[in-house]
């Protein structure tokens, strides 16, 4: 993923999303994309730019504010053999579609014993910063992970954004596709041609023997920065990106933890009943007969996201807090270490300016 090949170029996350959609729409006439504001000039921060021009308003269209019904419409169209992509500019708005997603989309294949399938992608974006606050910032992927029949994917970089989105479109199941607003302008080397990142295969991003660190969505980026800070002081963290949360490649994580003996999971969500709880529990279930494992989770503070910047900063994990947590696990006797705050900053976060 990091080595540039001839057909690869640096591409932003947002452009990678758009390219993946366009390529699938070119090759598969069953794919269509709809949702609030997908066809206006802002084009969901650019992730749908040019699609209506290329594919026309029958395959790319905005909707009324009717998330519940539109989700049902997507499901019905999917049952009829199409492959809808339904776009939500915030993950919080999926809460208006819960009945259709949980009671119909997730269950139809099973309760109708395979007579219908629901191949659709629900794109949704997690917001952060600039006062997004209580209702525009939530990472709610764990709610969907809870229910059999839904796949849940949360890419952390442009390469996976494209490849996993293509895999999601080709998948015969409903896929909740979790994007992050602040990742949109981060870039990575991405192949020009169409390719699929298999759902259910984690990536080991850095090798290390001291601790296994799993980062979800944009927290992966923060974990990678924490890894850099920690290597300065001789701590080697093995950072793993699960990419897909359902199905979850627990084997890759377990193999790593068996070697390091330590696991920190950092989620862009609350820890309570969250993806981090699930990953820790499954690692312990799989590895309980070996040597003892030290575990820790980090995520949103157990409170509602405040808008004021001072409290918001305390609400989120960040590279400094992650590095500190790792340090405390790896070197419990050396107390009082804290990283250089300047080095812990992430340019793509510092640069972000609202209003939206």
């Amino acid at each position, binding site marked *: 993923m990091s080595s540039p090949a001839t057909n690869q170029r640096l591409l932003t996350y947002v452009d990678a999303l758009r390219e993946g959609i366009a390529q699938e729409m070119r090759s598969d006439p069953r794919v269509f994309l709809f949702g609030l504001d997908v066809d206006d000039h802002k084009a969901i921060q650019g992730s749908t730019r040019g699609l209506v021009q290329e594919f026309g308003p029958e395959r790319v269209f905005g909707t009324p504010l009717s998330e519940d019904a539109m989700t049902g419409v997507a499901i019905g169209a999917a049952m009829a053999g199409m492959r809808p992509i339904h776009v939500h500019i915030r993950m919080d708005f999926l809460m208006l579609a819960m009945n259709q997603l949980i009671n119909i989309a997730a269950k139809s294949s099973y309760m109708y014993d395979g007579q219908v399938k629901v191949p659709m992608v629900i794109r949704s974006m997690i917001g952060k910063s600039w006062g997004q606050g209580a209702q525009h910032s939530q990472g709610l992927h764990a709610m969907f992970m809870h229910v059999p029949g839904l796949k849940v994917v949360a890419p952390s970089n442009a390469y996976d954004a494209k490849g996993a989105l293509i895999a999601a479109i080709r998948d015969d199941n409903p896929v909740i596709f979790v994007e992050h607003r602040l990742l949109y302008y981060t870039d990575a080397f991405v192949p020009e041609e169409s390719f699929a990142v298999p759902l259910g295969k984690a990536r080991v991003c850095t090798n290390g023997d001291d601790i296994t660190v799993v980062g979800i969505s944009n927290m992966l980026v923060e974990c990678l920065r924490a890894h850099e800070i920690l290597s300065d002081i001789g701590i080697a963290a093995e950072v793993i990106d699960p990419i897909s949360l359902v199905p979850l490649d627990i084997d890759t994580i377990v193999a790593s933890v068996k070697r390091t003996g330590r696991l920190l999971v950092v989620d862009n969500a609350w820890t309570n009943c969250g993806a981090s709880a699930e990953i820790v529990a499954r690692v312990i279930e799989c590895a309980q007969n070996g040597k003892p494992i030290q575990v820790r989770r980090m995520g949103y503070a157990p409170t509602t996201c405040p808008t004021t910047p001072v409290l918001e900063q305390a609400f989120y994990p960040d590279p400094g807090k992650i590095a500190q947590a790792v340090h405390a696990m790896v070197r419990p006797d050396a107390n009082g270490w804290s990283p250089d705050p300047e080095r812990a900053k992430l340019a793509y976060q510092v640069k972000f300016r*609202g209003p939206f």
Partner: protein
Amino acid sequence: MALASGPALGIADFERIYRSLRLIRRAEEEVARIYPSDKIKSPVHLSIGQEAVSVGICDALRRDDVVAPTYRGHAAYLAKGGPLRELFAELYGKATGVAGGKGGSMHLIDMSHNVLGASAVVGTTIPLAVGYALALKRNKSDRVVVAFFGDGATEEGVFAESLNFASLHKLPVLFVCENNYYAIHTPITRRWATNRLCERVATYGIPVHRVENGDVLMLRELAAGAVARMRRGEGPSFIECLTYRWREHVGPNEDYDQGYRARDDFNRWLKDDQVERIGRMMSDESRAQIDSEIELDIADAIEFAESSPFPEIDKLYTNVFAGN
């Protein structure tokens, strides 16, 4: 639809209405002016151009009546009497804000002036207004509730469900649709099969009214009639208020260069600008007097916001559950 013709308005009424209109206009212009400094790190949805809806409706209410605003809610908050200092402090994320800096622009609340909290999820507060009205009715109160919402909110299922229930139970709730033609950048022509919103609502047995030119005095009169009906226990009413958002959907700027709507539309609405219209109904002296008082109040509120502290970190966890 027969109107309840209230007593003719006098100069004191015009002055009160003008003061409210002008305060909202100027306060939001100041928000827009300050915004590029990044002191207000909150997504602001300005009501500049739409003030007449909040002012006309709220002027027909008592202090103990209730309003449920939206994320585009500075106007309703101020028109209902919400304090200016605490508004600016909230936008600045300060501890002295209406929600201690935790809610920001999209979640204004002031229960002491009966401003119910606003939601950033479109349509969400419509049934809350209905529920509040249910409670008032059960308590044999003659207080009433106003639900403000946009044209886009009427597309959510919860709107229809709320209308039906409110009418079924004859609840004291006034539904006020601020139809500014757009949901973000998408016009109603691309979202509605027909624009006969009032007809749709009327089928629930709810009296409907439509004000096409933003006339603040007409809005006030219609609201007064609806309020009188509600106080008599005769149930909900609906007012569709055509209006126009002068600035971008979210943020401080104009956006006529973006190509989705024409400056000519704005120019047409500018002719009917209610701040100017009511301003002209007053003597130059009293208008100048009100204007200068408003400038002082706004300057004071900004100074208050700037000099207030940010919340202490331990506030991160207060009120997750009630009473802590």
